[in-house]
């Protein structure tokens, strides 16, 4: 029976301790749920971590909201990386070494295995953007483009014959965002002004010199 000063509804409310436990459970469940949703959104398989004598295979997905949040939290991230991270809807990283490498660590066969990966990428609708190739290393950048040349998916693949690394992003990067990235690197009208030999205060900085904000890290060019 309720007291004169307590309504029946209030009598059934959980106590303060129970409310705190429930809140803590929700706070812990959100990232777990996020990872599960991210795994569903960003790749066909869930997280995988294998590290044994045969080799290493690491694959995991990160949901977009965490990547976007990290863009604000990570203190030393370059400005251009922050801009890109704000437009990421999902991220999947895969690393393969040893027997888990597409060529099973055979450097001679790595080139063919890499070519097969790129051919499969093309069948999935990716458009090649850039290729860099040396005797030991291969890097490929491919994208799925949507209306208005918006980048819907971006795949960066690197292989040095021993390690195969693949980064796949689901994004919504349009021309305006690409312009932000470019300006975040300091490559902006000042640099274009240099190209025309303009002798103005804006064009006074040397190419690549820091025109970025003061809180940017010094590792823009890596």
């Amino acid at each position, binding site marked *: 029976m309720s007291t004169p000063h307590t309504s029946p509804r209030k009598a059934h409310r959980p106590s303060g301790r129970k409310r705190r436990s429930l809140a803590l459970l929700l706070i812990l469940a959100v990232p777990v749920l996020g990872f599960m949703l991210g795994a569903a959104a960003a790749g066909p398989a869930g997280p995988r971590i294998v590290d044994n004598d045969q080799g290493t295979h690491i694959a995991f997905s990160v949901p977009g909201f965490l990547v976007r949040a990290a863009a604000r939290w990570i203190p030393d991230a370059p400005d251009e990386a922050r801009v890109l991270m704000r437009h990421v809807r999902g991220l999947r990283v895969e690393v393969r070494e040893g027997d888990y490498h597409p060529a099973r660590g055979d450097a001679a066969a790595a080139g063919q295995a890499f070519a097969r990966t790129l051919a499969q990428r093309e069948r999935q609708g990716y458009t090649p953007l*850039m290729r860099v190739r040396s005797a030991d290393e291969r890097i490929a950048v491919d994208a799925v483009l949507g209306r208005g040349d918006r980048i819907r998916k971006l795949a960066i693949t690197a292989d040095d014959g021993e390690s195969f690394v693949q980064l796949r992003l689901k994004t919504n990067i349009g021309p305006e965002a*690409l312009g932000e990235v470019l*300006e975040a690197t300091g490559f902006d009208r000042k640099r274009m002004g240099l190209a025309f030999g303009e002798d103005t205060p804006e064009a006074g900085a040397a190419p690549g010199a820091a025109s970025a904000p003061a809180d940017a890290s010094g590792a823009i060019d890596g």
Partner: protein
Amino acid sequence: MKRLFFLLVLGLSLVLPQHLMAQTGNAFFDRYSGQDGFTAINITPKMFELIAAMSIDAEDPEAQAILEMIESIEGLNVLIYEGGGNASPRSLFQEARKSVPSGNFEELMTVQGDEEQVHILVEDGKPGYIKQLVLMVDDQDEFVFLTLRGNIELAQIAKLAKMADGMGLDALENLEGVGQ
């Protein structure tokens, strides 16, 4: 049957010339791509379209002209040799020079120094524009072979060198004033 044969011949006649054109100067690139000591960079037309579509605040009409030039580029291949293989920059330079068909290309500029030689060849397009530019640089320690394809305004090519870091484009600064 005759109709099928006719369509096949028509299709091949449309495809083959483009295929042959695409191979001009690239046979040398393909031959050494992936070999010891070589780094090959290929940037596709789509990449240039994306770069040109970037929303950059280019109020300056000349800056806008640069963006339009980037949009006119249809492809860029760069082959860099920094030693470590069986070839020498000088021999590569001579081989590259022979690989470019002389009938289609004309020499735009040659720079011959004690330690460096630069050769720039172009394939003409409409007046004031070029369809393809081939750049070869030998500076004793390094060899660079670059092909740039598109509908490129010759007068603006030198600007690319000032905007791009490395990638062998520095030698294009020698073209400043050409075509104006």
